[in-house]
């Protein structure tokens, strides 16, 4: 069978294609974006006409995937960890309804926050929703697990959570492919009330869900990813979850350091294997990428069992991603560093590309808002968030997708005038539109600047659902024509743009200014592909 050099993300995508996927749903977000991108560029996916379009946000993505599952086919949805917060309502309730065709929910965590506003461990969502959760340690395992995850999903009629982290998502390795499975046929659920969560039905379903969770621990298709390897040492045993297993194996030479090792890559985790290791050893070290989920479970509140080392006692730092050095130190092994970084080496934070329209928009905004004093520009998540850094220092918030609009509304309610929001086009259709409706309905005094570059730039230039629709959306929501302005953020329009902004700041009602100019990266890519066609 064929071997391919694949990123973890790509291995997941290829596996889904090979395991009979019929629909892929996603909203971009680092480090999950390449899953959808791989499927979109796959010839196989286009020959089979697999559904593979971006969704407006993670909630619409997961619900569409659930719809495909309802119709009996295999579906996958991918998002970054904070996307699962947005999709949580659909996700938790999909555990209640259960699935028909297999449904995999991939959540890509970003410990150390390389490209994120927080650090979350999605495994907690698996436990919260009471569904199986897989956590591959490497690319090959990720590939194989997808087949089992679909099968487990259909066997137990549950959505399956598939948790990866940045290092696996964005690291390439050779992956051996398996035989391709056929897609499922369209087939309605046997029980047409399966997806109707009326309280009377939901109560029964919840009881069934509660009792099934315990039995999942011992189902082979899940438990085969948890393995115990005994060793001669008796003083300490090691529990390593997901990718932490790699850092452990990097550090130990198993012929000398013969530790008993329990590798956990699927949840709910096995009580019997945990007992195997804790009965044999006087102490255990727990290595987890993310939060101390297994560690907390083992310690409990009393923490009066055997001695445990991990993130909670400081053996491993409480936050941030693992690396070989952290694990070496936890094992009491020496770490030999190379030379120190010379002090002349400066930080090189990301910055706007030369000629970016956001930069021109901010140059005008900084001037326009100056006379009112600092602290009144709420912003959001995207390339435009880079305006928080010098020399701009132009925004005062970046919280979660859409929060610029709603926070500006709340601050205006409190009397902060003018109250300005700056939001990107993709972020606007992700979660800004509903906030705008609130503003219109109560006629808040806010000025909302939609910095429209016709793409999701920050994540690499994916299609934006907003493109070509923003004006109509704003009008449809009820923004008045007189206060719906479009400007072109170019240096030559600087004075004119300042004038328009200032005018709208003085208006006591909802204004929307669309600052419209295509992202130069996307424009270059577009022109190149137009030229080659």
């Amino acid at each position: 069978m064929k071997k391919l050099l694949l990123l973890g993300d790509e291995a997941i995508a290829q596996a889904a294609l090979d395991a009979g996927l019929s629909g892929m749903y996603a909203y971009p977000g680092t480090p999950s974006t390449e899953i959808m991108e791989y499927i979109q560029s796959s010839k196989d996916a286009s020959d089979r006409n697999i559904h593979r379009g971006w969704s407006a946000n993670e909630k619409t993505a997961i619900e569409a995937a659930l719809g495909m599952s309802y119709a009996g086919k295999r579906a996958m949805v991918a998002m970054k960890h904070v996307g699962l917060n947005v999709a949580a309502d659909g996700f938790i309730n999909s555990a209640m309804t259960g699935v028909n065709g297999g449904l995999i929910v991939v959540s890509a965590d970003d410990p150390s926050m390389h490209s994120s506003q927080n650090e979350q461990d999605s495994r907690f969502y698996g436990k919260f929703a009471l569904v199986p959760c897989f956590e591959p340690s490497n690319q090959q395992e990720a590939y194989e697990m997808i087949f089992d995850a679909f099968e487990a999903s259909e066997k137990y009629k549950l959505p399956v959570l598939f948790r990866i982290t940045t290092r696996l998502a964005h690291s390439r390795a050779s992956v051996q492919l398996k035989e391709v499975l056929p897609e499922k046929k369209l087939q309605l659920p046997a029980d047409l009330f399966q997806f109707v969560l009326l309280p009377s039905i939901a109560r029964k379903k919840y009881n069934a869900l509660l009792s099934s969770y315990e039995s999942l621990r011992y189902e082979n298709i899940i438990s085969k990813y948890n393995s115990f390897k005994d060793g001669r040492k008796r003083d300490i045993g090691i529990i390593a979850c997901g990718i932490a297993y790699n850092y452990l194996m990097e550090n130990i030479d198993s012929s000398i350091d013969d530790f008993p090792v329990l590798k956990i890559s699927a949840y709910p985790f096995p009580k019997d294997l945990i007992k195997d290791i804790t009965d044999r050893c006087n102490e255990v070290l727990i290595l987890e990428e993310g939060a101390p989920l297994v560690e907390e479970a083992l310690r409990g509140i009393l923490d009066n069992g055997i001695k445990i080392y991990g993130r909670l006692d400081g053996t491993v730092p409480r936050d941030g991603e693992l690396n070989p050095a952290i694990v070496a130190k936890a094992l009491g092994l020496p770490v030999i560093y190379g030379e120190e970084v010379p002090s002349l080496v400066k930080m090189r934070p990301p910055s706007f590309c030369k000629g970016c329209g956001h930069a021109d928009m901010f140059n005008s905004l900084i001037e326009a808002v100056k006379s009112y004093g600092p602290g009144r520009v709420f912003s959001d998540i995207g390339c435009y968030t880079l305006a928080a850094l010098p020399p701009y220092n132009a925004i005062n918030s970046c919280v979660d997708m859409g929060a610029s609009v709603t926070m500006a509304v709340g601050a205006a309610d409190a009397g902060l005038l003018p109250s300005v929001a700056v939001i990107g086009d993709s972020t606007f259709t992700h979660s800004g539109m509903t906030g705008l409706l609130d503003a219109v309905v109560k006629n808040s005094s806010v000025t909302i600047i939609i910095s429209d570059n016709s793409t999701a730039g920050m994540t690499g230039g994916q299609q934006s659902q907003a493109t070509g629709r923003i004006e109509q959306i704003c009008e449809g929501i009820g923004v008045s024509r007189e206060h719906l302005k479009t400007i072109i953020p170019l240096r030559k329009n600087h004075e004119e743009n300042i004038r328009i902004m200032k005018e709208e700041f003085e208006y006591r009602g909802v204004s929307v200014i669309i600052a419209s100019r295509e992202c130069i990266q996307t424009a270059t890519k577009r022109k190149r592909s137009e030229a080659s066609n």
Partner: protein
Amino acid sequence: MKNDIILSGVGGQGILSIAATIGLAAVANNLFLKQSEVHGMSQRGGDVQSHLRLSDKPVYSDLIPYGRANLIISVEPMESLRYLPWLSKNGWLVTNSTPFINIPDYPPIDEIIKEIKKIKNHIIIDADTIAKEAGSARSGNIVILGAASPFIDMSFVSLENAIRKLFGRKGEAIVEANLKALKAGRDCSGE
């Protein structure tokens, strides 16, 4: 055989093409490989690095442990210094001398070069000029790879074949330009 290589530069400078070339060669040589990349926020003009690990035995960690890299390949001089804690005592540092200045406090280039020269095994080349002379101004990254190639335990021919495979889709002219760039870099390594 085991090679741990750190690639460094600034987002958009093409370190992923270097990684892809070495990766393809490693696969053709039946080696185990892990190659961790940076995607996302830092690609907007921030510092980027890639960890490349080749071995004839399975590779576990996607990240190279401190002090274990036998080679740093950098397309930007200041960035080459950022990863010194990973470089082993006998490791080589191969870097471009042309600075990429997109921050206001970029240090004077001669001080950077002085720091690089303190590293026992180093090669500093003006990859951009060499690339231009080789007739392929945009292949500075491949010139650097050529200069670093003696320290990678794979034959030069296998790197050439990887270039053919990687750039093949872009046409014969691009392939030839990159092969020339690779050779021009190799010739500066003094090997």
